């Protein structure tokens, strides 16, 4: 992919892959598989909260 495409779709692709791995991984087993599920779904949540709340209150002019 071209650089512009990467900068547009890179992060969404990473998050989609993580989520997918987490959703399926958790089904396959316990222990390590559970951790895969928690990290796979947890990282997108952290990303959402981080970017969603960043800069709140500090209104630029």
């Amino acid at each position, binding site marked *: 992919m071209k650089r*512009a495409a990467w*900068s*547009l*779709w*890179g*992060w*969404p692709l990473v*998050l*989609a892959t993580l*989520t*997918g791995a987490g*959703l399926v991984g*958790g*089904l*396959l*087993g*316990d222990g390590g*598989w*559970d951790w895969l*599920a*928690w990290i796979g*779904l*947890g990282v*997108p*949540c952290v*990303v*959402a909260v*981080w*970017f*969603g709340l*960043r*800069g*709140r209150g500090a*209104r*630029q*002019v």
Partner: protein
Amino acid sequence: MTPRALRAWSWLHKWSSLASTVFLLVLCLTGLPLVFHHQIGQWLGTEVVSAPLPAGTPHVTLDQVMAAAKTRFPAKVGMYVSQEPDDDTIWYVTMGDTPASTTGLKQVAVDARTGIPLAEPRLDRGLMFVIHTIHVDLFLGERGKLFLGFMGLLMLAAIVSGVVLYAPFMRKLRFGEVRRDRSARVKWLDLHNLLGAVTLTWALVVGATGIINTWADLVIEHWRNDQLAQLLSHDRGMPPVTQLGSLEKAFASARAREPAMKIAFIAFPGTAFSSEHHYGVFLRGRTALTERLVRPVLVDAITGEVSASRAPPWYMNALLLSQPLHFGDYGGTPMQWLWALLDVLTIIVLGSGLYLWLGKRGPARQVLASDLRSAAP
């Protein structure tokens, strides 16, 4: 993307979302407490618990369990006997006026070690019943279920078109950039894009598996007519069973046939999950994955001998595996909280989408229009 294609995708995104948003909000809001239904049941005191007894305390027979349940509802007959996957100390006996009843069902929880009835879990009353029924069929039965499934299809269309529209809107922005220095509308547009991108895969999976679940009754009926009918073809013409044989013996025969598996539930003759002449003993595996899949072992209700045991067809496995992916009931408590968080994020995506549509008059509309114009090559 040509301006024409852009308009077409915008149209699809707008209308597929608008038609389904209210119902999707209802599903998200009712789904939230359902994620925690076990914990809520414990708080409300509706969850059945058994007294701690030393491990290895012998269990009473299933015939004793049935007799105990019968003392609570002497006029009703057995329909199902089941156990939770993580607790073999309680049997849940579901009873009805006939094995095929769909209303007036009663349940008795019986201690598997003492044979004493512990509680009568209410199947058709209570807060969680109301929330669950709204979520499943809006109190409209099978039609409501299929309607919500259709709303799910619209959601999938909205997600796919939303992905297509992500590109023109985000081309000049970095991932996660929220323009707080512009109008509220621009800020919410950016948040809508951010949270939509984050929840995309989860929403697709939960939406698609939810749609599959709306077909559950149809799938089970098909399985009953298809595989079960084949298995039982040699029984045609047998008179109906008037005196049921020992449930314990049937259970023991099924376990002897599949010694590596544990019990999920037993369906009595005449129920949706069995024939007129058999106990349907449904066994599950013991690993995280196979625990979700059940294997029916059909046991002659009079002699207690196994008639057939066959792995269920792919569509039953697909249905069974789609359930955890919809409920989020795997991966323990952290998974429940992640499910809840993603559900709330989805509510924000739905709400911001509605807000963006409602507030499309005024100066902010020009911002979107100029965004779209600059997006077109």
